[in-house]
């Protein structure tokens, strides 16, 4: 007998706000977190804009000595996890630590650390590479640090599937609880890749918007004038529990997790399947897993990166899966505001779905001005909408052709 699984805590560090309240207020008000890059001199780059996390002090959440030995993505991960645990009113000293686990995603891990240490290697030689280089850089160290910070001795894993990483992580955490291997999981994702090398790489791929003069208008998913994604950074973490465990301790339930699906395009390293078949299979698998009819879905938090290809093929995929209902449901891309958090995107977007269900409010796709005839769904343009959300679905589609989808349901 599968266990029922619910979301009981939320923590986030995002370009539009730190903490659940600030984040939700910003994305339902249509606030853009995108500006010119300040973390390094990007003046020679074709893309000079990003959605940076502002006013983040790791010391607010992490011992100063520990924080020094963490890459920025780990600092985000640990901070958001502490927030989620606090939000869930979970006493980590009282829980059975062996049944408390962590599965998070990150696409690139400690790339800032890698760049800094490589520079040291080139300038000062091999003997000056920090002994903390490896344990700061490896992508799994985020979930390692969270386990240490929260004394979570249960299942622990890190998923790396590029931009699908944290939706895969959320899905895998859901499975762990569903099959009874743990009672509580911290899940979501973290990313901090607004770095010279990383931005240069994405620039060379011509994947990012070059609308440097109007940063706040640069991320415009589904709009006819979209010209690429905008890199974001941050972390989104949830406390996920078996329903049994949540009820026993009287936890507040945001939503129930009912379905998880994934697929591979098996088509190209970066380009999506030109008919959106992989994304469609992912959504179908998630709906089937949750025994949910496509007709019951009220909201899709789209991958919606604002690249010409993604938005077109994702729209096609939604139309294939949802048929006549595709035009009735709400589809929005919060990346219009947060930018694209790569491997952390599914973490904060899973949170968006949980909060949309809790508040019966769908956040908008901002900068939607010029309709594209190939993108012809209701993208909740520019203003959030009050509407009943019983079922919400979150899509994440990654380089490598990875597709992942989760389905959340109003708890009753």
């Amino acid at each position, binding site marked *: 007998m599968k266990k029922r699984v619910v979301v009981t805590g939320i923590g986030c560090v995002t370009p539009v706000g730190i903490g659940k309240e600030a984040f939700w207020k910003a994305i339902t008000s249509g606030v853009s977190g995108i500006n010119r890059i300040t973390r390094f001199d990007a003046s020679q780059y074709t893309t000079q804009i990003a959605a940076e996390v502002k006013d983040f002090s790791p010391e607010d959440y992490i*011992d*100063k*000595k*520990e*924080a*020094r030995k963490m890459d920025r993505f780990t600092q985000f991960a640990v901070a958001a996890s502490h927030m989620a645990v606090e939000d869930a009113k979970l006493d980590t000293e009282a829980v059975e630590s062996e049944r408390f686990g962590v599965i998070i995603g990150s696409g690139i891990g400690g790339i800032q650390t890698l760049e800094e240490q490589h520079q040291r290697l080139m300038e000062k030689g091999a*003997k*000056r590479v*920090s*002994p*903390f280089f490896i*344990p700061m850089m490896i992508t799994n160290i985020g979930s390692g640090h969270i386990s240490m910070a929260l004394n979570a001795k249960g299942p622990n894993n890190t998923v790396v599937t590029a931009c699908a990483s944290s939706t895969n992580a959320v899905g895998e955490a859901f499975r762990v609880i569903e099959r009874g291997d743990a009672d509580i999981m911290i899940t979501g994702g973290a990313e901090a890749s607004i770095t010279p090398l990383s931005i240069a790489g994405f620039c060379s791929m011509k994947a990012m918007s070059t609308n440097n003069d109007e940063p706040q208008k640069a991320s415009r998913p589904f709009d006819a004038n979209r010209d690429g994604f905008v890199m974001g950074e941050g972390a989104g973490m949830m406390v996920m529990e078996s329903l049994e465990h949540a009820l026993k301790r009287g936890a507040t339930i945001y939503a129930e997790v009912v379905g998880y699906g994934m697929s591979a395009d098996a088509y190209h390293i970066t380009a999506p399947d030109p008919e959106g078949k992989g994304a469609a299979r992912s959504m179908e698998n998630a709906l089937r897993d949750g025994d949910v009819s496509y007709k019951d879905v009220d909201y899709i938090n789209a991958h919606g990166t604002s690249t010409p290809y993604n938005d077109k093929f994702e729209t096609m995929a939604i139309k294939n899966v949802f048929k006549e209902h595709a035009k009735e449901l709400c589809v929005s891309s919060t990346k219009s505001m947060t930018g694209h958090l790569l491997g952390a995107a599914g973490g904060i977007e899973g949170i968006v779905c949980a909060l949309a269900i809790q508040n019966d409010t769908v956040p908008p796709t901002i900068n939607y001005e010029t309709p594209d005839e190939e993108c012809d769904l209701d993208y909740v343009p520019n203003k959030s909408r009050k509407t009943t959300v019983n079922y919400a679905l979150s899509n994440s589609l990654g380089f490598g052709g990875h597709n992942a989808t989760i389905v959340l349901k109003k708890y009753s």
Partner: protein
Amino acid sequence: MVFETVVKIIGEQLGVEDLSTVKKETSLINDLEADSLDAVEIIMAIEDEFSVEIPDDEAENFKNIGDIVAYVEKNK
């Protein structure tokens, strides 16, 4: 002077704000809770600061901060 600089480096590497209790007899590992990786990084920073080379087998014999200072004073 060497002692003060070494203490300052240790403080920075370990995030210790109150350095008033750090003496020559203080042990990095037993008193300041440094792990083996911290110790490597501290030795590296000291090598950089004083332009000295501290071989691994010397570093392994340091019992306290006084030993580090003595080594630096002798070899810089």
